[in-house]
Structures are given as structure tokens and as C-alpha cells.
């Protein structure tokens, strides 16, 4: 099994309301180290068979067409999760 990870983040120039709310909550819990938070999305796309380059190309196309909206978001990474095979075979 192959797993492709797609990371999507709100565009840097857009205020991210959800990240801002999280940033406001952290200091109240004692996490005063963090001044800013941005919240994005991670997609895990699973496919049968080995991690072939075509899968990555298809994932990139899906990421642009539907997983992200280029007006408000950037696709920041499309990559294989190389731990996926090992995890799938691990009986534990």
C-alpha cells in the first residue's frame, strides 16, 4: 500500500481566523512561548500497490483541483509517507 500526504495551508497574506483563535488559547494554558499559530489541513491518500511516481502526479492534480482553493490556500507539500508500508505490514 502507498500513502500520499498532502499538506494545505492558508495563504500567508490571509489572516487565519482559526489559527488566531488557537494562538489566543495557548497562553491561557501556560504555553506562552508561541506568539502565532496557523492552522492547515493534512490529507492522507491511500492507494493499492507500490509508491509509483504516477500516484504522486495524480495527488498533485487532486490537490490543485479540489483539495485546495488557490484563492485562499497553498499546497505546501505532496509526498509519500514512506512509513506506510512498514506500518501496514507490522502485525502489531
Amino acid at each position, binding site marked *: 500500500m502507498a500513502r500520499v500526504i498532502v499538506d494545505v495551508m*492558508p495563504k500567508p*497574506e*490571509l*489572516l487565519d*481566523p*482559526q489559527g488566531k*483563535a488557537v494562538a489566543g488559547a495557548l497562553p491561557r494554558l501556560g504555553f506562552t512561548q508561541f506568539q502565532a499559530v496557523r492552522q492547515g489541513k493534512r490529507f492522507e491518500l491511500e492507494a493499492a500497490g507500490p509508491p509509483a511516481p504516477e500516484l504522486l502526479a495524480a495527488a498533485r492534480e487532486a490537490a490543485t483541483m*479540489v*483539495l485546495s*482553493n488557490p*484563492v*485562499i490556500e497553498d499546497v505546501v507539500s505532496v509526498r509519500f509517507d514512506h512509513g506506510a508500508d512498514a506500518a501496514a505490514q507490522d502485525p502489531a
Partner: protein
Amino acid sequence: MTIRIGVVTFPGTLDDRDALRAAALAGAEGVPLWHRDRSLHGVDAVVLPGGFSYGDYLRAGAIARFAPVMEAIIDAAHGGLPVLGICNGFQVLTESHLLPGSMIKNDHLTFICREQRLNVENNRTAWTNQFSAGQEIVIPLKNQDGQFVADARTLDQLEAEGRIVFRYQDWNPNGSRRDIAGVTNEAGNVVGLMPHPEHAVELGFGPDSGAGPRAGQDGLCFFASVIQHLGALAAAG
């Protein structure tokens, strides 16, 4: 000839029945359309109503945009079919690239429901021609992801081309860029807005107005406009 206005129901749509009723109150025939329909059943105009299509999963409107009925609507809209997107329907239209920009979460992060004053800046569209330019109207607003955003170049272009149809008055309820409540495409047949005209069409059930409590019927004018637009097209054709 009775004008037939199609109203699309996606899984999670809320306001389809209200939109059908509004069309009927305005003198048109409301025609229910299903998200899996590949045909528009010969309707003269389409309303994409409010709600939470597909639970707003991924992004509001993002999955609805790929519903079979949307292929037919996108094609027909390019050919001049009047399309009105209300709230979630507006989000579907931006995801479909029929309208520019996008909507993100309200800047105050909370759901909001209020009677909202708007300024009608463009009364030349298929859906606003029965308003006077600069007319102030009050219709309900209710949303979570209502903050209209676009890059500065797009916003400048919309301003220059007169494509900002509605602007929030008194108070910007969601942080929308330049107080934008609704926009149109270049041709003026596709209009999207966050507030809900279909909830201001009947005495006793609308927003408060000068005529009395819950007497506001400013939403009827959207439907009267498209009836006028289609009638003028038929007369010219």
C-alpha cells in the same frame, strides 16, 4: 408564459424549500432540482440555496461544486442562464469559478444571524434590475464562513467594473474585504451574495421594516428582477 426557476438541493441544503416558495410568491414556478440531475429540466433560471452542502466538509461548497447538476449549471451559466447563489450557494459559485474570490470563516469566529442592511450598488444584473441604484435593503444574514476574500488586484478589478453588487451597511458582519456582500460575473447573469433574500418575501415572516414588524419583503425584488430579465429577453428574441 410562467418563468420556471430551478432550485438545487444538495445533501445538507437547508433553504431550498424557502427559495422554491419565494419563487412562487414572486409569480414564477419553482422547480426542484436534485444534485445528481444531469439535466436542468428546461428551467429558465437557477437558484443555489443556502445550507451546508456535504456538511461543509473540505471547504464550504467545495464538494457540491463537483455534483453532476453543477456541470450543467456551469455550462448554462456561460451561455447566459441566470444563476443566483445564496450563502452556501455563493460559496459553490466561487468554488466553481463562476464568481471570483472565496469565503473564509467570519473574522469573529462565530456563527451570526441578524437582519442585515445592504446597499444595492449594481442594479443592472439579471437579479437586481428591479432595485434602484444605491437602494438600501434589509434581508437576513446567517453564516459561519461569510468573510469574502480576494487579492487586491481582483478587488480593484471588481470595483472598476462595477461588479460589487451589494455592500454591507452600518456594520461589516464578517470581516469581508471592502464590505462586500455580493458580486456578479462580467455578463451580470450570475450573482452571489451571503445574505438571504428568500427569507424576506412574505408579510409576517421577514425582517422588521418601516411597514411593520416582520414585514420586510426586499427579497421578492430578486425574483421579480429575474422574471423581468427573462421577459425582456423573450420579447427581444
